[in-house]
């Protein structure tokens, strides 16, 4: 006890640095955003009044927010499972002791070093109806690639954004899953092999369960990222095509250059806080849902 008290000043000092960072960069902005969300402002944003929690309810009930929420959820449903499956698939393929496998690992993980802006630009050019390589190659099968172009068709714009997003996050998924694979004890595979398990059974009985902590982590991170998608939308579609606004995600509703709530700092803050709460709920549900299926070893 005495020892603990004696160490207290030093402990506070050391905690102080990270606490200050947390306070300045996380806690204060969060509190500030919650407060700002109470405000209701006029068109030009020059005059704001505190309308209390009703702003939150108004925002949440609004058609614009509901639509954007649906877009965000759809995007999550497209990117998370596909990203996970592709990431696991590539990681398992590359988890072999073969000559030159390092080249493939480097390629597969390279998108982690690619910014959203670059990734979006790459896909924007690839999908461009007039000059895009993909449009030229596959327009026979998917006419929408040329006319009007995937990003301009209200039905395909969101999947196209999802495609870019999946590609951009694949490197991250690949690296996390590869690390997970390398921590699976070799004896588990050998034991299953001696017991007669073929490669599919070894995958389902050893690989997948042993990867479950990595899979949960990736799922939560990818879902949060999907709900927070802004850059891809801003660069690829600008929230359009109009008038369906079929790619206006919640972050784009908040920040987008032609957003309907542009300029209203109160509504924007309220929407941001609501997005935070929604992300939190998703993460909690995922943790709860996975809990019984995740095995952190012994």
């Amino acid at each position, binding site marked *: 006890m005495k020892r603990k008290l004696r160490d207290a000043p030093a402990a506070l000092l050391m905690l102080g640095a990270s606490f200050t960072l947390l306070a300045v960069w996380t806690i204060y902005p969060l509190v500030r955003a919650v407060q700002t969300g109470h405000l209701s402002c006029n068109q030009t944003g020059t005059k704001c009044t505190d309308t209390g929690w009703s702003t939150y309810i108004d925002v949440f009930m609004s058609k614009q927010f509901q639509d954007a929420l649906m877009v965000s959820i759809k995007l999550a449903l497209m990117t998370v499972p596909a990203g996970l499956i592709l990431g696991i698939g590539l990681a398992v393929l590359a988890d072999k002791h073969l000559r030159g496998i390092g080249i493939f690992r480097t390629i597969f993980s390279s998108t982690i070093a690619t910014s959203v802006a670059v990734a979006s630009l790459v896909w924007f050019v690839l999908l461009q109806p007039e000059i895009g390589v993909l449009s030229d190659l596959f327009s026979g099968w998917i006419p929408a690639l040329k006319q009007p172009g995937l990003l301009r068709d209200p039905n395909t714009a969101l999947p196209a954004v999802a495609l870019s997003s999946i590609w951009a996050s694949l490197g991250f998924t690949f690296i996390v899953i590869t690390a997970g694979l390398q921590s699976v*004890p070799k*004896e*588990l595979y*050998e*034991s*299953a*092999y*001696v*017991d*007669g*398990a073929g490669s599919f*059974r070894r995958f389902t*009985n*050893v690989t997948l*369960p*042993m990867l*479950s902590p990595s899979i949960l982590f990736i799922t939560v991170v990818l879902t949060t990222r999907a709900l927070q998608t802004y850059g891809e939308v801003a660069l690829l579609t600008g929230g359009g095509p109009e008038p369906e606004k079929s790619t206006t995600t919640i972050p784009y509703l908040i920040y987008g250059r032609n957003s309907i709530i542009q300029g209203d700092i109160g509504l924007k803050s309220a929407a941001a806080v609501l997005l935070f709460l929604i992300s939190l709920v998703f993460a909690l549900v995922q943790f709860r849902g996975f809990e019984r*299926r995740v*095995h952190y*070893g*012994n």
Partner: protein
Amino acid sequence: MVDGGVCASMAYGAGVAQVRLEHITKTFGEDDEKVTAVDDVSLDIADHEFMILLGPSGCGKSTLLRMVAGLEDPSEGNVTIGDRVVNDVEPKLRDIAMVFQSYALYPHKTVAANIEFPLKVRGVGKAERAEAALKAADVLGLTDYMRRKPGQLSGGQRQRVALARAIVRDPAVFLMDEPLSNLDAKLRGDTRAELVDLHRRLDSTFIYVTHDQVEAMTMGSRVAVLNAGRLEQVGTPQEVYDHPASAFVAQFIGTPPMNLLAPGAMGSSDVQVGIRPEHLLLTTGGPLHGTVRQVEHLGHEVLLLTEAESGGRLTARVAPSLDLPEVGATVSFDVAPQHLHRFDATTGVRVS
């Protein structure tokens, strides 16, 4: 361990299999950095035998076992199980089961599911599977833990689950790779006796890899001593102890190890003489002299660690009732001629 009577009527141990290793060589790596893990080893393991592969780490004993399992392919030579050369046979068709050092249990499966797994893989029906798992669990005293996960078990219990998973399929040959080395000393002692009992009850062939000579001496019907990929000696524990085929075996088996005198200390200079500590008799005027460096009291016996006049050390095992010499005293030992082991000073091979 559960009562033997419970399982006396059980159908385990129906498999009949001798394992024959013929001129097995295993090399790893490419031409320029080739490592020979196993070097021309031939060994016949009889049906129902408890064969111990003993040696220091890196001697090739695990590699040899893995070749019997089918986890490694021999570079040269044949592995025969029963009357079938199995070099190109998949592990699952070799009628073997393996227990790994780390137990290799599936952490996400219950004890029951772990034990059932080899049957499930083979498409055995659910009810039959559960029954077989329960029977195997009963043999190992695990029936109260069937619904637990490995993480909720002690090391000893996990080890039993691994054994239960091996016996559930009733294989002809059991392969065990240092299965006791993750247990604490007390538990290891108990489990040794249980494994011997299990072997007796299952009545099948055991091949057991260990670096622990106590396990080798106490459990094996025969012991194969390996060193640097080569087979040094095969024999019953007593044979290996009484007539070590090489200076290496002489030193590796026995605690404390056999005293090896400097070449020429007794007899000709191209012969190295070895004497077991218990065969050194403390007397006055014996042919061997040493200065006492340490006196270790073990209760039932005393070890005298001395520095031999001829160089090297001499350890003697003496009765505690003796009037023991002090540290620093000069003592002399006698040894009966039949207890002298002679090895070639250069090759280490036994010469008499």
